[in-house]
């Protein structure tokens, strides 16, 4: 990762909404984005996390030229979103609206052909590209049926295929696995990882923390229109004022606890007797992954028997909750339905 391929500088977006109270209309300014500055590097897999209404969709819409920011600017693949809109659009493959954005009376193939023309892909190249995508995404079974007959998951896969049509260097995926069944979501994640390995820059929003942890090299958490945390998952977890805990159960000679306590990085060891000479140690440390080999070595060297080891790490969900005061999964489940109706939420 060297140069930023996406750069946002002091992006702000204010919406004017109308409130109706007791028959009277009142205008209200809603700051959806507040002075957001962000770099995403060429070849990076970047995750954008945030509860509904946090500003992620607004940020993505500004980066994809669907919205003009109130102030600030952003550059995508070297092109300004304010001045070089067509070049920005040509640089991005997008999946923003889930299964929306498809023509239901056209087949999957006809949809891809239509959007391929809008991306200026020459007819011959387009036909080959569509066939390649059909093979890659295994669209064969339903590809030549009209979209109205598709399941939600099939529509999502087609929408994903649409985002790959122009083979753009940047792929922006907004909750791509949201209505997919588990095997299809797993397949899509594998494909996205593969595309990333091939050199594509990926901007990915999700409310599934395991997805973010599995896929993203860096993560940004956005809330109330501001980026409130930015870094690798490990950096974000390390920024938490909370210790990792590793539970180790087994049979431990008396001096083991003192030896473990003496290890640099260990802040606390709690011992709980489990019966039959077995005990459970709850070892707190700043980074359990780094500490684990040394812990095991120390315990085994002293003639202990280990029955199981269970690390309890700080997760991205913990980071998210600490930063926003909300659980991402719960927040999305409660308000997610609102985004479907209304042309996409402003979140």
């Amino acid at each position, binding site marked *: 990762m060297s140069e930023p391929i996406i750069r946002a500088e002091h992006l702000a977006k204010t919406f004017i909404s109308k409130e109706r109270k007791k028959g009277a209309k009142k205008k209200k300014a809603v700051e959806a984005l507040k002075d957001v500055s962000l770099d995403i590097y060429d070849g990076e897999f970047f995750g954008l996390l945030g509860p509904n209404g946090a500003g992620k969709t607004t940020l993505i819409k500004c980066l994809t030229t669907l919205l003009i920011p109130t102030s600030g600017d952003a550059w995508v693949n070297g092109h300004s979103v304010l001045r070089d809109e067509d070049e920005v659009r*040509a640089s991005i493959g997008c999946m923003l609206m889930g299964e929306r954005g498809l*023509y239901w*009376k*056209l087949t999957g193939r006809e949809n891809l052909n239509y*959007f391929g023309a*809008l991306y200026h892909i*020459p*007819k011959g190249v387009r036909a080959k590209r569509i066939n390649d995508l059909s093979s890659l995404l295994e669209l064969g079974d339903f590809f030549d049926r009209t979209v109205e007959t598709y399941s939600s998951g099939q529509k999502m896969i087609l929408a994903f295929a649409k985002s790959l049509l122009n083979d753009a*260097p940047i792929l922006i995926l907004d909750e791509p696995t949201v209505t997919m069944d588990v095997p299809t979501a797993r397949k899509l994640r594998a494909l996205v990882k593969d595309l990333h390995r091939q050199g594509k820059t990926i901007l990915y929003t999700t409310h599934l923390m395991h997805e973010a942890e599995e896929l993203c090299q860096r993560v940004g958490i956005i809330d109330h229109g501001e980026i409130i945390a930015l870094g690798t998952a490990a950096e974000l977890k390390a920024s938490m004022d909370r210790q990792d805990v590793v539970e180790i159960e087994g049979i431990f000679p008396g001096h083991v606890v003192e030896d473990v306590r003496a290890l640099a990085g260990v802040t606390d060891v709690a011992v709980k007797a489990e019966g039959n000479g077995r005990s459970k140690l709850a070892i707190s440390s700043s980074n359990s992954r780094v500490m684990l080999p040394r812990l095991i070595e120390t315990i085994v060297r002293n003639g202990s028997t280990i029955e199981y080891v269970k690390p309890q790490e700080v997760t991205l969900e913990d980071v998210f909750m600490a930063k926003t005061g909300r659980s991402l999964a719960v927040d999305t489940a409660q308000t997610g339905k609102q985004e479907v109706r209304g042309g996409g939420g402003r979140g």
Partner: protein
Amino acid sequence: MAVAVSRGFGLGRPGWRANADIVKTVIVSRLKIVSRYKGMLVMEALLPIMFAGFPLLLGFAIGGANAAQNFQKNTGTTADYKLYMLIGSCVFMVVTLMMWLIGYWVRREQETGTLESMYLAPAKRFYVLAGVTTYAFIRSMMIFVIALFLGSLAFGVNPLSGNVLLAFGFISVGFLPLWGIGFLFGAFILKIKEANSVIQLVQWVVAFLMGIYYPITFFPGWMQYVAASFPPTILNDGIRSSLLNIGNLFGGGWWVPFALLLAFSLILPLLGYEIFLQTERRLRRTEGVGQY
């Protein structure tokens, strides 16, 4: 500034071939969509016959056997009042379908999310709009031909006795101002996010101004000027005067309404497109084009 990585398709400037491909693909896709709604075209083709049928029967009920002579005497046009009204109804169908299809297209694309999908692509809106308006014109001309054929059989008139070639010339030139009006109408629907009530209102205003059942010389003086400066009125008058071999509204030869339509052809598409772009830009500054 972010680094430029040149990969993928579409980063180069598109040539005329790519732009023509957009227009063609949009037309073909729209025609495929409409063909998958069974019977729609035939049902639409019956509408102008109904439009013409009402005044014809009313006229016959009032004028009786002298209806044709009365019509010619009162309007100073032709005794073939059946064909006069049938042509007016068919041209009205073309005009209203052009507006209805554009308005409905914008609204439907907003609702289904395909408008945002379109805005995510680098294609110039002009070519997409050109494709949609051309599709609308092709569809409305299919209705025009079917309705004129069936209507002629139903009312026992012959639309081919006049100057068909000239009528075709009027249609070819009149298509471009209708493009422009389609763009303007699309911009309006994009802004107000409501198509049905506007279409309902506008189509009756258009029907009134176009003079589908009567010559606009029936209007008070100022209203005649308003109606005569409306391209659909000139188109209607041009086609009617060609097919019925009667004089046109402007008193001169055929070239007078033809030249007026040509002038509108140069102005209205550009004006309509510019207003569409301005509306779109204003929306992207406020709420986004996909908000509905």
